[in-house]
């Protein structure tokens, strides 16, 4: 095992989208038990430095593996299909229309209840796209198509963040 291993190797998991969250959490804790700087607090600077590097690397991998969207993007990247979210923002017209409708609904919402029901609709749509992602990645191995779905999900995630901010204002 080394610091250059990919996230799945590091966590000893199969390289696929579908993962058991509880098992992932357990593995994370088992790895941090070995690597956390606290374990080396009395062992000098060299051991501290190594522990810090590993602990950071394990946390980085965990952040990516536990978030379905990041995990999906990472799988595509490993397969040679980077998502390039910043440089490639072309999306189908129907999808953009829906985004606009959601944005309008958010701007028009006059209370937490209206925002909550919008949030539910957005969640449902996100769930559906994630299922689609799972099928594309694990069954059809169609990474090119998965990249499109992931970009759509990234838009929705950004919108969810804005929505949560609005909810904070009402709270």
């Amino acid at each position: 095992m080394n610091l250059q291993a990919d996230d799945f190797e590091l966590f000893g998991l199969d390289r696929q989208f579908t993962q058991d969250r509880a098992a992932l959490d357990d593995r994370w804790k088992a790895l941090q038990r070995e690597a956390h700087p606290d374990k080396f607090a009395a062992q000098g600077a060299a051991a501290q430095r190594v522990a810090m590097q590993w602990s950071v690397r394990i946390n980085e991998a965990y952040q990516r593996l536990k978030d379905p969207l990041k995990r999906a993007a990472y799988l595509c990247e490993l397969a040679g299909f980077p998502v390039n979210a910043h440089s490639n923002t072309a999306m189908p017209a129907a999808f953009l229309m829906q985004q606009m409708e959601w944005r309008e609904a958010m701007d028009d919402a006059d209370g937490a209840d209206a925002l909550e029901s919008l949030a539910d609709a957005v969640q449902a749509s996100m769930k559906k796209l994630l299922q689609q992602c799972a099928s594309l990645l694990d069954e059809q191995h169609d990474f090119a198509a998965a990249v499109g779905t992931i970009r759509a999900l990234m838009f929705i995630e950004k919108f969810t963040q804005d929505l949560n901010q609005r909810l904070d204002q009402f709270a």
Partner: protein
Amino acid sequence: MALLQISEPGASPNPHQRRIAIGIDLGTTHSLVASVRNGVAECLPDGQGRVILPSVVRYVDAQRRQIGFDALENQVADPANTIASVKRLMGRGMADVAHAEKLPYALVDEPGMVKVRTIAGEKSPVEVSGEILATLRFRAEDTFNDDIFGAVITVPAYFDDAQRQATKDAAQLAGLNVLRLINEPTAAAIAYGLDNGSEGVYAVYDLGGGTFDISILRLSAGVFEVLAAGGDSALGGDDYDRALADWLLHESELTIDSMEDQARLLAHARQCKEVLSSEEIVTAEVDLSTGRIDLSLNREQFEAATAALTARTLQAIKKALRDAKLTKDDIKGVVMVGGSTRMPQVRHAVGEFFGQEPLVNLNPDEVVALGAAIQANQLAGNNPDGDLLLLDVIPLSLGIETMGGLVERIVPRNQTIPTAMAQDFTTYKDGQTALALHVVQGERDLVADCRSLARFELRGIPPMAAGVARIRVTFTVDADGLLNVAAREQVSGVEARIDVKPSYGLSDDQIAQMLKDSFSTAQQDMQARALVEARVDADRLLLATRSALAADGGLLTPDERAAIDQAMALTQQALSSTDAAHVEAVSKALAQATEAFAAARMNHGIAQALAGKNIETI
């Protein structure tokens, strides 16, 4: 064959000797020190049997000072030189200090962090805190009649980088080896969880003298995983005192025009508050230079005067729950920490919010120090079989300023530490050869609304067209929650890095100077101290290397082993040297010789963790 244990002169005869490790709760109102003795964490009392040390320092004249109860007694008589609640000033500029005009002592505006004007000169909050920490250090040394190996010091979870760094500097001034800064609610959870063998998701509600923290943690099999931390680093019992003082003034139609009156009124308001925790009614009687306050006050009136403060804590709980993606029904128990949770209205409001009685079976004053002591004991290596693991988070987002005064977030809040995150930026002008970076912390989108941590420059970028340079900015947050920022231009390899530290104006030189001046070291010859420290460090390294070799020596080739053995022998010899520089040099050589070994051990450990798991799952 019998194995003889040979002790080198000056070496510890028993490499497994217990190391004295302490936990310190450096509080706004009072501070405590605790340690694990015979397997049990306990707070250490002073000569008169008191475990609490009021966090009050009085500068009597240029040389003398009083710390703790002695200082507290003189607070009303000498408010200008008696510094209480200094924690609220740690890492804070004048603009950050709420109600500076209502403090009974005078602040001096200094870049980054205020100072207090006293009879002994201008004192940094770091120095004042250092006095409190040194007092606790001496208490621990007297208790054990031995040197302290290291300390865990607690900070509010909601402390930002500047406040954490200031706390660590104060510990350094007090001559303490800081094993770790840990968050107060996390420390409380350790003391609580280990005592009760709890599993599940818990909320820790920590309302102290000057800070409020809410942490949501998952406890399972010795792992304390913080899911979200929130709070307000300027909200605590002091604010209840102040609200009550304002109410008393308002009702009596009086005003305040001296520091003495301010101190007297605040002290009295605090007494009334404490009485109202057990009584329904109290008589407020206080003589001010502008008139006399004499009125009776019941609990309801006090609650009404402070309801807005309690409501603010509930807002913070809601935000933390949202961050943890949990609802209040997911919370198995609510642990109450901090003296201010003795107020019935606080207990009631929290109980009502969560729909369950909060847990108050541990002394809310002591629980943080006890948890810190348990963690210190583990970090010092006294408990090699312990399965305690803290996975804490950073409470506030970290980012840098981009065009238009906006914040680009690099590390989002509630990220598990240690962590490193990077983002790429580019130049916006043709031929631009330097880039100014402004590091900020906070949740707001505008730089002006966030806390400025540091500014630094990346220079020597080769001239390129705008947008071509690729500058990767990496934020690294260590296990103490402290930030380090590095910037590197990817095409040319030009680099700049900074420990986010000097923003409040204390350089390493200034700390060294304060150390020289400080009472904790004044009686000691600095050189003797340097030698002692070098020897302790060398000894620590030898112990660590021995135990590493005993555990994983088999990972080394004979040549590698010989090199380490030789470096160890040289270090061992140097322990009897009187030349601090020599001791440091051989220690450094030993550290270098073991670097590859440390990496190999880690690989081995990780591989074993995975192997163990794989077998389990089959």
